[in-house]
């Protein structure tokens, strides 16, 4: 018999990473008397995308260096015009306060000899990159602040669904990934902060967990928001990154290029004019690799000893510190070898591109009481500071929303059905292992969804993803840990179907490689200058156009874009 735990809180935050810890802290600051609970399937001390810290801020809008308006222009161009500028503006406007607050908590940012933040240029125009050579303890510092603010934390419980009643979010269900308890949480508002869908494509190494994103980020929130009835947007704008080949982590050009490193082809020639990760840059990388001029590399061999040593110190203590042993085990060294780079598998992540749950400038989704922040919330190119900003907005606004709201009792039949769905693999312990079911699913993603996209391939993909429900039914789990992985495969399947449908729907090419269609190779602003949104309607995935919100900052896209192309 499965034990059931019942929990109650005012604001429930699902996922205790970058956005989630900040959401909980800000909710408690807004009302210290109210209860805030973070539900985390790992442990908030080391969870989420920044488990081992971060080596720099990519979107720091610091007075005197740039303005929120300049930042909005930059992101408008980088995301080919498809964005809600008001939401992006929030990251530009509030990012400085976030950095100052983190600074006051003991997070170290690089400063010059005058004590000013030492910004670097990686973007096309402005300076937004702020190094954090000592950023390794970021997550521990956030966990300490969560405790200090008296937000509650339940680690090792994974949410599977948001509970919706009378059209609003009233809690979540899930299970304890260690003891297997069924967990029902009633809440007046729910904030989803579960990160990217980083386990969508299969890395070329074949290792399921050798992903760019923390592999715990399996698209949980994309799937949960979808089943709650919320709109998702820009799903066809995939995340594809230039990464260290095989290692599949950042090299990292944002750290190294301000020191003089650059991306080069096999002959040592530059072929991208800007190392800022955009779909356009990725298309240039893809073309270079396919022209036979590869392998490509991040080149540092021309730099002096002190500079290389400084780059090593940063790269080997932050974010993905195992880079050091990766290079060493191959006998490679930045002084003598370029870092061989490759194109990553596809994923969904608004931290880098734009795919996510639709949110407005208050971090509200289209379901009352349901908020989203971080990599899973669509605020284009939002990176870590955007996750903090939207975590903050979600926490503050959710706390405001819950005032005067009562808990609602979840529907017992619905709970029973969800419980049965979750525990099904446990009834079949000798069923197909989740590893094989996941491997095959993600290989299909690679075979048919990886750009360049075309209708025929994506039709096959969609058909396979729909039929994959039957394959999921074959999965077996021998313990709660395996059950966690099984339920993650359900999330990945949902994300794969969304990725196929959204990509088929947008009949043009946009965002460089992210949505490069062989059968519609041109950008078509007349028909497709809009968001492609999707949602669950009567158990069907429905797609529709959503107009781009009126700009608050003027950007002449045609002019900017042409300049960018001819500059190459």
């Amino acid at each position: 018999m499965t034990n059931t735990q019942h929990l109650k809180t005012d604001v429930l935050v699902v996922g205790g990473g970058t956005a989630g810890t900040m959401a909980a802290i800000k909710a408690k600051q807004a009302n210290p008397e109210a209860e805030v609970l973070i539900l985390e399937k790992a442990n908030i001390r080391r969870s989420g995308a920044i488990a081992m810290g971060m080596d720099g801020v990519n979107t720091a809008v610091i007075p005197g260096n740039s303005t929120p308006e300049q930042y909005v222009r930059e992101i408008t161009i980088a995301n080919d015009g498809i964005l809600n500028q008001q939401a992006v503006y929030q990251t530009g406007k509030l990012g400085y306060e976030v950095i100052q607050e983190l600074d006051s908590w003991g997070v170290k940012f690089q400063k010059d000899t005058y004590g000013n933040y030492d910004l670097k240029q990686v973007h096309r125009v402005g300076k937004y990159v702020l190094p954090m050579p000592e950023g390794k303890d970021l997550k521990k510092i956030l966990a300490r602040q969560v405790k200090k603010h008296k937000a509650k934390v339940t680690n090792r419980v994974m949410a599977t669904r948001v509970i919706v009643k009378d059209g609003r979010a009233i809690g979540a269900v899930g299970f304890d990934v260690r003891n297997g308890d069924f967990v029902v949480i009633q809440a007046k508002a729910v904030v989803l902060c579960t990160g990217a869908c980083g386990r969508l494509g299969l890395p070329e190494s074949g290792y399921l967990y050798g992903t760019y994103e923390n592999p715990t980020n399996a698209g949980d929130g994309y799937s949960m928001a979808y089943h709650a009835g919320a709109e998702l947007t820009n799903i066809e704008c995939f995340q594809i990154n230039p990464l260290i080949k095989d290692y599949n982590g950042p090299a990292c050009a944002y750290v190294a290029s301000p020191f003089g490193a650059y991306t080069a082809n096999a002959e040592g020639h530059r072929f991208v004019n800007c190392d800022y990760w955009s779909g356009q840059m990725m298309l240039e990388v893809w073309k270079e690799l396919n022209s036979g001029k590869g392998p490509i590399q991040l080149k540092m061999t021309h730099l002096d000893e002190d500079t290389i040593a400084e780059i090593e110190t940063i790269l080997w203590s932050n974010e993905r510190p195992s880079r050091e042993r990766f290079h060493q085990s191959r006998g490679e060294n930045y002084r003598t070898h370029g870092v061989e780079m490759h194109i990553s598998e596809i994923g969904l992540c608004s931290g880098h591109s734009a795919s996510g749950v639709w949110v407005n400038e208050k971090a509200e989704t289209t379901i009352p009481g349901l908020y989203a922040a971080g990599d899973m919330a669509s605020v284009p190119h939002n990176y870590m500071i955007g996750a903090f900003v939207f975590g903050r907005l979600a926490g503050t606004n959710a706390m405001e929303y819950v005032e005067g709201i009562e808990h609602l009792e979840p529907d017992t039949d619905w709970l029973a059905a969800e419980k049965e769905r979750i525990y099904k693999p446990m009834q079949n312990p000798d069923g197909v292992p989740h590893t094989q079911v996941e491997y095959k699913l993600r290989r299909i993603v690679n075979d048919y969804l990886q750009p360049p996209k075309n209708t025929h391939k994506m039709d096959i993909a969609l058909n396979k993803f729909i039929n994959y429900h039957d394959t999921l039914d074959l999965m077996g789990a021998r313990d709660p840990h395996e059950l966690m992985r099984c339920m993650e495969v359900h999330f990945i399947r949902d994300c794969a179907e969304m990725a196929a449908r959204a990509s088929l729907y947008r009949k043009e090419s946009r965002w460089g490689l992210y949505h490069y269609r062989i059968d519609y190779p041109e950008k078509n602003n007349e028909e497709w200058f809009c968001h492609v949104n999707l949602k669950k309607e009567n158990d069907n995935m429905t797609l529709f156009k959503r107009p781009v919100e009126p700009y608050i900052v003027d950007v002449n896209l045609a002019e900017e874009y042409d300049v960018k192309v001819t500059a190459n």
Partner: protein
Amino acid sequence: MALTNQRVDVPVIVDESKCLEKCHACIEVCPLDVLVKNPETGKAYMKYDECWFCLPCEKECPTNAITVQIPFLLR
């Protein structure tokens, strides 16, 4: 369904002579929750082949009992 046990080269290596029976530091910080205690010896080991080679287990081990290798397929 017939299942088979395959041998796998795992990334997380625990030096049992250094691992403390009452300590759970590595188990608590692993994002993927792949480490458990061997109930017979009280020593930690990698039970599930799902490592992100992120290193919290190694960094937070009080006795330096843990070494994380890059997974074989990526090495």
